[in-house]
């Protein structure tokens, strides 16, 4: 793959990659940007080489996840995912998002924050990034069976938390 092609792919997947980096960094936008930048450095420098064994997206998400894990180990910090609607950059979107939707997104963010990491990752990859469970398993470097278990448990837990919130 030529450098131009590589850059074209990165650009095409940029928003999704940021969303994934955000999920890997527990919603910390600054860290997500750093992680994305480091991942891009690895890709364009050739330190991470696409072997065409999976789709480019699956491979790139794997690189982003690895970088985020390394970053997290370095920082040793636990943070919760937040939905930032007060950010001025989100104003244009906030205008398109109804109060109900906003509330629902906040509830989802809070529910995801309560999940174990693997469950949160698989739900994000399947529902947010539209990957199949086997693709998610490839990104997470786990077996498909294990990914399926995390997926089912995560989904049940999110529904339970959202159900509790609705009852309140």
């Amino acid at each position: 793959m030529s450098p131009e092609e590589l850059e074209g792919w990165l650009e095409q997947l940029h928003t999704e990659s940021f969303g994934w980096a955000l999920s890997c960094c527990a919603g910390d936008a600054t860290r997500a940007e750093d992680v994305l930048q480091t991942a891009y450095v690895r890709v364009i420098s050739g330190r991470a080489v696409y072997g065409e064994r999976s789709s480019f997206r699956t491979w790139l998400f794997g690189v982003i996840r690895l970088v985020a894990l390394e970053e997290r180990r370095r920082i040793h910090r636990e943070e919760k995912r937040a939905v930032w609607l007060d950010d001025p950059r989100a104003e244009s979107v906030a205008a398109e998002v109804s109060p109900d939707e906003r509330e629902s997104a906040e509830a989802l963010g809070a529910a995801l924050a309560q999940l174990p990491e693997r469950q949160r990752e698989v739900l994000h990859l399947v529902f947010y990034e539209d990957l199949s469970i086997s693709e998610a398993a490839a990104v997470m470097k786990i077996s498909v069976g294990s990914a399926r278990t995390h997926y089912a448990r995560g989904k049940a837990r999110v529904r339970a938390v959202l159900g509790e919130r609705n009852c309140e």
Partner: protein
Amino acid sequence: MNDDVRDSELRARFDVLKRIDAAHAPAFAEVMARARSELADATPAPTRREWRLVARRYGWIGGLAAAATIVALIALPRRESQEAAFERAVRSFHSDAALGAWRSPTDGLLDLPGSRLIATTPSISTIR
């Protein structure tokens, strides 16, 4: 409520989250420019190809050093440990009969006047 309906509800919530997150995404060009400048600032780490070239160019030095080490290990006499030397000396002493008859030249000095008297226990019948 069936699973598909509940899945689509969950998906709808994720879609909203995705739209919100997308609004926060930094511009691709901006991130890429930072990545490029980071790459330019960093000391370039050797790539696999470069490592291979280095190995091909200087590999013979490593090979030569390894061969020299092996030759040295085989050719140089091994240094005997002190314990092994002592054990060997004891073994040779026991196996050599001539050594068993050997007496120290200073043994005679232990033969003091009256020492024979001290060494024997007198019996009552001999005391008068």
